[in-house]
């Protein structure tokens, strides 16, 4: 998993570099400062899901299954809220502001970078949901703690990428 994370990190690095390189190089509008709103609530949701998944892992290690399921479920919900929020943001950008991936360089780089991250959230959510289903059927036991830990590592990675994306796109980029 560390290997995969290293590989993924290097893919994200390239996209972030491209984003920064193309900041302010768009030939036509809309420009980021005009259309982007800072998604504070979504960021809080995603980052706190890192915390809940950590609590879930701790509970499983001690063999406490009910708190595990609760914390795991909250992680899935928080991740879902984040994804839904991104969808709403994109809808706003596409329909209200007319920014698509074809509009200009900002559109191209923005949708690729945020989309790449959202894709990782989707993959992570799918995996989390599978574990949740197993947990609800009582198939996740203490001896699976190590495997669950690997998945939670991936989720932490997705969250930490968001920190970078957030800073680059919404703080520096505006």
């Amino acid at each position, binding site marked *: 998993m560390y*290997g*995969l994370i*290293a*590989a*993924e990190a*290097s*893919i*994200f*690095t*390239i*996209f972030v570099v*491209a984003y920064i*390189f*193309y900041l302010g*190089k*768009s*030939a*036509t509008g809309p420009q980021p400062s005009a259309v982007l709103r800072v998604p504070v609530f979504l960021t809080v949701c995603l980052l706190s899901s890192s915390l809940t998944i950590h609590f879930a892992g701790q509970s499983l290690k001690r063999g406490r299954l009910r708190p595990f399921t609760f914390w795991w479920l909250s992680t899935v919900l928080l991740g879902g809220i984040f994804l839904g929020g991104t969808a709403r943001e994109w809808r706003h950008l596409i329909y209200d502001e007319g920014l698509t*991936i*074809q509009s*200009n*360089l900002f*559109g*191209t*780089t923005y949708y*690729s970078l945020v989309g*790449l991250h959202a894709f990782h959230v989707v993959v992570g959510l799918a995996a989390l949901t599978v574990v949740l289903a197993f947990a609800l059927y009582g198939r996740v036991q203490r001896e699976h703690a190590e495997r669950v830990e690997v998945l939670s590592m991936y989720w932490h990675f997705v969250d930490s990428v968001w920190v970078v994306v957030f800073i680059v796109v919404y703080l520096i980029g505006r």
Partner: protein
Amino acid sequence: MSTVPLTYDGAASERRPLGEILHEWVTTVDHKRLGILYILFALTFLVFGGIEATIMRIQLIRPHNDFVSPEVFNRMFTMHGTTMIFFAAMPVLFGFANYLVPLMIGARDMAFPRLNAFSFWMSAFGGFLLYFSLLGGNGLYGAGSAPDVGWFAYAPLTSQTFSLGHSTDYWTLSVLLSGIGSIGTAINIIATVISMRCPGMTLRRMPLLAWLNLTMAGLVVLAISPLTAAQLMLLIDRYLGGHFFDTQAGGSAVIWMHFFWIFGHPEVYVLAIPAFAFASEIIPVFSRKAIFGYPVMVAATLAIGFISMSVWAHHMFTVGMTAASNGFFVLSTMAIAVPTGIKIFNWLATMWGGRIQFRTPMLFCIGFLFQFLIAGLTGIMLSAAPFDWQLSNSYFVVAHFHYVIVGGILFTLFGAFYYWFPKMSGRMYNESLGKLHFWLFVIGFHLTFDFMHIPGLLGMPRRVYTYEPGRGWDLWNLIVTIGALFQGAAIIIFLANLLWSRWHGPAAGSDPWDAWTLEWTTASPPPEYNFAVLPEVKSRRPLWDLKHPEDPDWHYE
């Protein structure tokens, strides 16, 4: 260990129905079978790439030749480069890593056997996809079949405007797929080396081949991923109408170069480090001496891996970078010669005073030492930015990197084939044919690539489909093409030798070379589980300790 029964051998498997055997190979997750599949796949593509190279050389044999059209020539050099790097060189090295790393560190398989099979099939289908472009690349526009944008596919040649049809899509998708396969295998190698070593196999006792493949895998993880990202961007540009590399909308063609060469230069070391690994195993055995300077070899390898991440823009001196970045990339490129030089001296010191046996694998490694040195020297010449301004994209560069890849990497690879063939097949190859292969290939190699430097110095650019007579290039091109024919003949002898010996060679026994690493304790070919009892290791040369209990290595390490 010779009492370990064989679970399968050539004679027994021939009696079973073909469908069953095929099914077994297609569904296998055994690291040895996947290794062999990787190698066979790569050899097939090596032949394809070789045919493409031969077509180019025939076209260039004399000025104004019309053996192929300019369009076909463009496709040939694109397919040749892409095939050789992604579908011949990398798979064959992954194949050897797959086969040898678990055996050498005393493991029963790779860490993730199913990921291993997945990675292999990703790479394999990437290769098939690339060649399917010959059928499907036309698209609706009838605009050419195979990709023709060059193996580094500079923007804006790859944009929809300049590359109609689907040929570029086939290129980018096949490279993307093979990249995913490579990353999977690299992660697998890292996990295997870190967590599957047998008792006593500390990092300081690990065979150099395992160390070097670990470094290679780390480089793959860090270097192939940027390529994957760049291919995603290209796909976004081509399919979704993005503007990453679209200069009309403010995008940049230069950034594609950066992204490509951030992959492209470490890639050279992804290929070269496993080649160093073969040399580091073969040279000591045939010099009858332990490797000289083991810790320094490991350190030099890590240094090469580290420095190679920061030299990519020496491919781009002619783009027009600032003086500061030119200076940085000149110095970092020159710095990489230091650890490489250390390695060459260590191999020489290993041979020094040894009782050298000039068997075929050793001959190839000695050839490698000389040729890699020359390749390094022309590399130093090209690393000087002003020199590069003069000769960039000339045949001098082509000669230089073929010296690295053929003279360095392919030579040790041939050595590795002959050295481990007895282990993989259980049979010995024919030594006279092996030596004939070596000498023919040496002659062909030097005819081709020594003389290729000269038209480069005289100003002949690469990738031209023909040239004017009377520029002093004619004779050199003729010689270069004649050399290519020698190389082709040598490869045919090599393949014939392997095929014939696979079924008719004399039995090899478990340890034909009197070698020292763990793979030679198992039967040839090794049983599926590799080791009935996991071995316990006390030094860098466990078999030496077994054979010489009165004077074991661990007294000296």
